[in-house]
């Protein structure tokens, strides 16, 4: 096998594990610094519901095998290269209609009003095309974003990579893999669930007892 294919180091894949994410946004901050991004991040980070949990989810492009964003683009502005990378919109073609934003099942593309164009993650083409790792996965302190060989991550981690998703009637296969946590029944997020029942209420200010003395 050739060492590289279309610039991407062969055998290296991109993996996302939101269960490891600590919400620090190093990925976004680093994405802004990528050579041609000029201070704009092509990825984002979602707080699932901060009122309930610190759970966050980094959102990079999943690079679908049959990308809905490209299929619905009336201006043919989104190109997929042979290495499977789905690129950001082409400036001369994008008409800023946001069809892609609505069509993407993963919520990846962003319409940027100041430049009237859709921008999204291109798996750090600036860097991967010259054999470097994507900026976000390089800096990610929790390695919730990981760039490397599937056999390595499967050996190191208990989670398993998946790349097939079912959205209603639509099956989607992606280049980027999502790590799936094995048989976790349920994670409880309300701190009250971890406290003694007697302690779950704020004591009445008038009948206040001083704890532990």
């Amino acid at each position: 096998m050739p060492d590289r294919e279309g610039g991407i180091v062969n055998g290296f894949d991109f993996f996302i594990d939101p269960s490891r994410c600590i919400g620090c946004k190093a990925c976004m901050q680093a994405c802004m610094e990528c050579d041609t991004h000029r201070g704009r991040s092509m990825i984002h980070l979602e707080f699932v519901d901060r009122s309930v949990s610190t759970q966050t989810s980094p959102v990079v492009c999943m690079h679908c095998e049959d990308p809905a964003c490209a299929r619905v683009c009336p201006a043919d502005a989104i190109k997929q290269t042979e290495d499977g990378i789905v690129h950001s919109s082409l400036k001369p073609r994008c008409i800023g209609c946001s069809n892609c934003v609505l069509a993407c099942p993963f919520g990846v593309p962003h319409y940027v009003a100041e430049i009237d164009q859709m921008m999204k993650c291109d798996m750090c083409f600036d860097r991967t095309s010259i054999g470097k790792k994507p900026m976000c996965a390089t800096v990610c302190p929790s390695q919730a974003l990981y760039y490397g060989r599937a056999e390595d991550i499967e050996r190191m981690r208990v989670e398993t990579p998946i790349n097939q998703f079912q959205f209603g009637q639509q099956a989607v296969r992606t280049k980027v893999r999502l790590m799936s946590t094995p048989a976790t029944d349920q994670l409880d997020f309300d701190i009250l669930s971890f406290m003694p029942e007697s302690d779950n209420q704020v004591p009445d200010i008038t009948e206040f007892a001083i704890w532990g003395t």
Partner: protein
Amino acid sequence: MPEKAAGPEPGKGTGAIIMATPTLDEIGLIERYGPHLQYEPSGGWTDYPDSTLVKTHCCFCGVQCGIQLKVHENKVVGFEPWEEFPVNRGMLCPKGVKRYLQNDHPDRLLAPMIRTQDGFREATWDDALNRTVEAIRRIQAQYGRDAFAMLGGASMTNEKAYLIGKFARVALRTANIDYNGRLCMVSAGAANKMAFGVDRAANPWSDIPLAKAVIIAGANIGECFPILTDYVWRARDNGAKIIVIDPRMTPIARTADLFLPVRPGRDSALANGILHVMLERGWVDQEFIEAHTTGFEEVERLVSQYTPKRTEAITGVPAASIMRAAEIWGPAETSMLLHARGVEHHSKGVENCLSYINLVLASGRIGKPGCGYGTITGQGNGQGGREHGQRCNQLPGARDIENPEHRKFIADFWRIAEPDLPRTGLTSCEIFDAIEAGKIRGLLTISFNPLVSIPDADRTRAALEKLEFLGCIDFFLSETGRYADVVLAGSLQEEDEGTVTTGEGRCVKLQQSVTPPGDARVDWEILTDLAGRLDCKEYFPYAIPNDIFRELAAASKGGSADYSGMTYARIEKNMGIFWPCPSHNHPGTPRLFEDGRFHHADGRARFFGYEYRPPAEDVDSEYPIFFTTGRVVSQYLSGNQTRRIGPLVDQYPEPLCEVHPVLAAKLGITDGDIVRVQTRRGEIELPAHVVRTIRPDTVFVPYHWPGRKSANLLTNRVLDPISKIPEYKVCACRIEKVAL
């Protein structure tokens, strides 16, 4: 202050300018000196084809990640990950990614400044340094040598930490030299010394992934030491159970195997409770305890009272969870216990640390791969900054300033008479108490912003105004610097070379990426110049930082923190060397106690048991809610650097008050409402952040901001009796919605 209105006083100068008080209003100060937000490299977003990459380290936090700074025409214009550096392997947190934006910043001080009637004017170095020397001489002649104090910082290099300690004792000849590490690491340091006879994390971080049980107590790893997250997750990948102890469900706690939501100020009771169960179930290593420790019987007696039921009542952690923690920790094959400020920032911080250390010693799991203990340093050089004599109670090599042999060694080394070497001075917060009491009249600070970082900020402000002279060495005008009479434009981390010692005890090399801009100078030159003007030139004969390093390494020889075998070349070649490193062919010591010997004279570690005692200010009917403070991932310490970096400010622009929905509902607060938080010391108004991740009896505010939203207006300046750390992590407050 009444004296202000009374006009000039003896020693108060001419009266035209009141000393140590801003002469420009806040808006004027901000307009001129910031914080302004820098969003892009000063040359804009262009290719810098001729740029070079300098392998150095991040300036924020004790992990000291390796990073490559991109340098173009003597300016730092970007970064590249440094994947070969073994600690972070290219990983960085958002502060590391954006740290380059502090360079060539519009707020950068480019020349020394002297305060005038309407702000500051730029001055020559001669003028600024001579005024500083005159003030030092006048104050010391009038009130005694100790009436002039110096405050350093733990974000600076080992070279500067050493130089500041020597400068204070040899040139200023004051006992009152301390540093902002007093607000950070000293409880852990004191406890480490008491238990192990040495003040250093016992293990390298690389032992974390080898542990089968990990206790993380009071350490918001995901936000304060983000890179260590990967170490914890790798431990879990290898089958470890993770136990997190925190009053908030922080990102590292979210998926922990066991989460113990401890009530603020109850850590020592919780540790006693866990040890109680370990003893009851026979999960202690009697052989190790007998062979390598002393003091166990007393602890055994003490913790017998801490039944799970009683511990639950004190700590607010369910008895079942306490038993579960013992079940995970007790019989584990390997284990690491890590703690940070959540345990240490208490008026019983040392007691808390020692109570957790008991869990490690009782298990017998220390000094082996995957077995041990570490306290995670918060500041860039939190470890090294405390070893080389910058502390009021220590001399270089982590020596004890009251130990006659240690005093003699250093006095001889510095070629001064032993009686001329000052004895123990006041600690950071005590220095402000002494200013308040009129005992200290002059102050020189470097890399310390006490107005934001010391508890009870209104008192700190009044103390600053009371000073007859305040000199500040800094690269940006901090909130404290606004009160300065003389500001000496110093150097950013990337503008000087030197070494720092990371949280795992690894001494690494910082490279000078650029030279200071304008008329600014590197800090060590400013201090040696000042020393010369104080007629002490012969004691400070340094031409380059390596001269200082060679001296500090020699001064540390035979001390507890022995660097004498290190050289710049060796440190660079090995990507860091762990102390002790007592000779040039010694490889350094990543893991302590491998030979089963602890660093007390008898080779034994010490158990110390403490009855739980409540925090200095516990909740009551008047102030019924616990108030606690901490960091966010995008800011560092008092924010003097990170509040000027646009993308970091955007990430978390202002302090929010975390409130649990149960408490919020009771008080009629919804997310985003402005709330007033009051303690006996002050009040602040800020938006509420209603989240289920904090105990309902507790509110949390991050501390990085100045002015009327400063968390430290509320915190309690009461100190641990041993370490003199203030109680940032618990006091009593009330909270209400502000009617709009």
